[in-house]
C-alpha cells in the first residue's frame, strides 16, 4: 500500500479541516484558552460543555468529529481515565452543534481488551449505544504517515484512518502528572491514536523514539485538534496510573494544544517551560502566561499544586 505523506494527507483533507478561525489567525491574536469551574461530575457538565464550545465558536455542522478520551487501565480508587460523563457531555454538545457524526475512539496502551476497560470505566453505563459509536484505534485500519522533519527518532508511523479521516479530532485527556514526561494532557493523549495492533501493548516504539519528540511529531501530524481537559478530579504523584486523586475542579479547553497544555501545567503548579514536548512545539510563546488569551476563571484562583515525584522537583512553577 502506498504511503500517504503528511502534506498530501493535509492537502487532501484541507477542506474538511474546518474549525472556525483556525484557517488564518492574525499574528497578534493570542490563542484562546478557557478555564471553566466544574466542581463535580454532575449533570451540570452538559450545560458547561455547550457553553465551552460556544465560547470557542466551533463550527462543526455536517462534519465528522472524533472524541479521543484517555482510557488506560481501571482502578476504582484512582482517577486514571477521562470521566465518561465529560465524554458524553462533549458528545451531546457536538451533536447539538449539528455534527454529522460524533464517534468516540481510543487505543489504550497496556490492556488489549478495550471494551472491557471501557465498561469498567463506566462508558457503557453512561453513554447510550457506546459500542455502536466506539472505534478501538488499536485495531483500526491504518495508513503510513511519513514524518517530515521529525522531532523524534522515528521517520514514519502507521496511524488509524478513523482519526486521519476526521474533520475534527477532540482530545479529552485527564489532567495528570506523568512519571516520564512531567504532565500528560492534550498533546500526550495523542499517544492513544498509535495502533497497538501494529506496535504492541504498550506502544513501546514511542518510548524508544523519545517521548517528547514523539508527542511533538503527533502534534505536527494533527495540528488542529480541539482539546478539553478533564481537570475536575485529576491525578498527582506517580501518574499516569499509580498516582492519587487531586481535585482541581476545572475544565480547560482551546484550539491551540500547546496553549491548553501550558495553561493546565500552570494550574497544576508545573512550569510549562520545563516540559520538554511543549518547548518543542511552542511557536508563539504559548508556554508563557502572557502568550495566551485566557478566558473564564482566573488562573490564580484555580491553581492547585499537584504533588510531583522527587525526580520532577525542578519543574515546580514558582508562585508570583
Amino acid at each position: 500500500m502506498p504511503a500517504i505523506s503528511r502534506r498530501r494527507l493535509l492537502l487532501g483533507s484541507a477542506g474538511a479541516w474546518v474549525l472556525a478561525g483556525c484557517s488564518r489567525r492574525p499574528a497578534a491574536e493570542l490563542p484562546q484558552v478557557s478555564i471553566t469551574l466544574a466542581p463535580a461530575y454532575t449533570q451540570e457538565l452538559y450545560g458547561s460543555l455547550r457553553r465551552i464550545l460556544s465560547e470557542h465558536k466551533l463550527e462543526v455542522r455536517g462534519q465528522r468529529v472524533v472524541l479521543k478520551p484517555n482510557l488506560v487501565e481501571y482502578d476504582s480508587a484512582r482517577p486514571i481515565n477521562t470521566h465518561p460523563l465529560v465524554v458524553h457531555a462533549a458528545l451531546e454538545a457536538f451533536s447539538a452543534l449539528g455534527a454529522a457524526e460524533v464517534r468516540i475512539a481510543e487505543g489504550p496502551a497496556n490492556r488489549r481488551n478495550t471494551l472491557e476497560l471501557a465498561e469498567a470505566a463506566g462508558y457503557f453505563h453512561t453513554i447510550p449505544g457506546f459500542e455502536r459509536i466506539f472505534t478501538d484505534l488499536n485495531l483500526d485500519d491504518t495508513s503510513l504517515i511519513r514524518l517530515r522533519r521529525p522531532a523524534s527518532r522515528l521517520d514514519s508511523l502507521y496511524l488509524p484512518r478513523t482519526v486521519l479521516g476526521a474533520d475534527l479530532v477532540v482530545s479529552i485527556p485527564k489532567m495528570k502528572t506523568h512519571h516520564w514526561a512531567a504532565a500528560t494532557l492534550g498533546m500526550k493523549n495523542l499517544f492513544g491514536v498509535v495502533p497497538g495492533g501494529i506496535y504492541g501493548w504498550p506502544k513501546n516504539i514511542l518510548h524508544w523514539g523519545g517521548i517528547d519528540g514523539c508527542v511533538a511529531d503527533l502534534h505536527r501530524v494533527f495540528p488542529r485538534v480541539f482539546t478539553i481537559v478533564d481537570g475536575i478530579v485529576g491525578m498527582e504523584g506517580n501518574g499516569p496510573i499509580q498516582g492519587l486523586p487531586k481535585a482541581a475542579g476545572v475544565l480547560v479547553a482551546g484550539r491551540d494544544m500547546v496553549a491548553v497544555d501550558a495553561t493546565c501545567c500552570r494550574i497544576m503548579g508545573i512550569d510549562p517551560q520545563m516540559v520538554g514536548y511543549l518547548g518543542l512545539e511552542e511557536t508563539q510563546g504559548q508556554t508563557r502566561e502572557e502568550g495566551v488569551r485566557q478566558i473564564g476563571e482566573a488562573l490564580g484562583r484555580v491553581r492547585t499544586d499537584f504533588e510531583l515525584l522527587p525526580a520532577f522537583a525542578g519543574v515546580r512553577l514558582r508562585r508570583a
Partner: protein
Amino acid sequence: MQFELSRAVPSLRDAQNQDGGWGYRGGASWTEPTAYALLALAAAGERGENCERGLAWLEKGQRGDGGWAPNRSVDRSTWVTAMAVLVLAERTGAAALPGAYGWLLAQSGRESGYLQRFRDWLLGLSQEQNVSYRGWPWYPGTSSWVTPTALTILALEKGGRGRLDPRRRERIESGREFLLSRRCSDGGWNHGATRAWGYSSDSYPETTGQALLALAGFQEQRLEKSLRCAEGHLQTCRSAEGRSWLEMALLAHGRSPSGFPKDDLTLDSAIDRALIVVAGAARRGKNVFLS
C-alpha cells in the same frame, strides 16, 4: 451465553473474509485473528474449506525475511510471526517454518542487547527491570514484553515437537527466565512492567494465563504463588480472553479450574470466540498451544 458458546465455531466460519483471513471485529484481515481462528478450527477438529482458505491466506502472508506483518498494509514483520508458527506447526513439514524460526530467533528485546546495556552502564542509567534475559518484543527494535515472549516460547516449543536444537533451547530458557523476572508482586503478570518509580504494578488475567502456559513444566516449585494468583483472577475475570488463557494455563499445570462465573462473559472479537473454542478443547485434553 450458552447459545453464544455453542455458536462460537459457526460464528467464526461466518466471520471469515472473502480473502480467507479474519479481522478482529469484522473488517480487513489481520494475521493475529486469522491465526487464532485457524487454531480454533483445528481445536474443533475442522478440516474443511474454511481452514484451507485461511491457511492459504496465512501462508501467502509470509514475507521475504521469514516473518509476518500484522496485516497486508504493514511493511514490517512483527511478533505475529509467532502466531503464524503456532498454526503452521500443526502441519508436519510446512515449508514456511524454517524461515519463520530464523526470524523469531533473530529477535530479542532491545534492552537486553550488549550495546544497549553498555550504553546504559556508561550513562549511569539504572533499570528497574532485570535486562539480562532475552525476551521478545512486539515490534522489532523495541523492548521485550510478556505477551510476545510467552507466545514465541509456545511457538518455538510447539514447532520443535520435543526435539529442540541448542540455540532454540537456550532462547526458550532465557525467555522463561525473562517471564519469571517480570512477575508482579501478586505473583501474576501484567504487560511486563512490574515496577515504576518504585511502585508495584498489579497483574492482569490474560497475561498471567499466557505467561503461566509458557512456563508449563518449568520449575514448578517457583510458580505456586503465580498459580494461586491465576486461580484468584479466574474467580472475577469476565473476559473470554482472560478466562480462556487462565483455564489453559491452570490445566497445563495440573490444576482443575473451577468456580468462575460462566454466564456473563464478554465475547467481543474473533479472538474471544476462538479462545473459547481452544480452551474448551484444552479441557478435553487437546491444547493447540502445546506441542
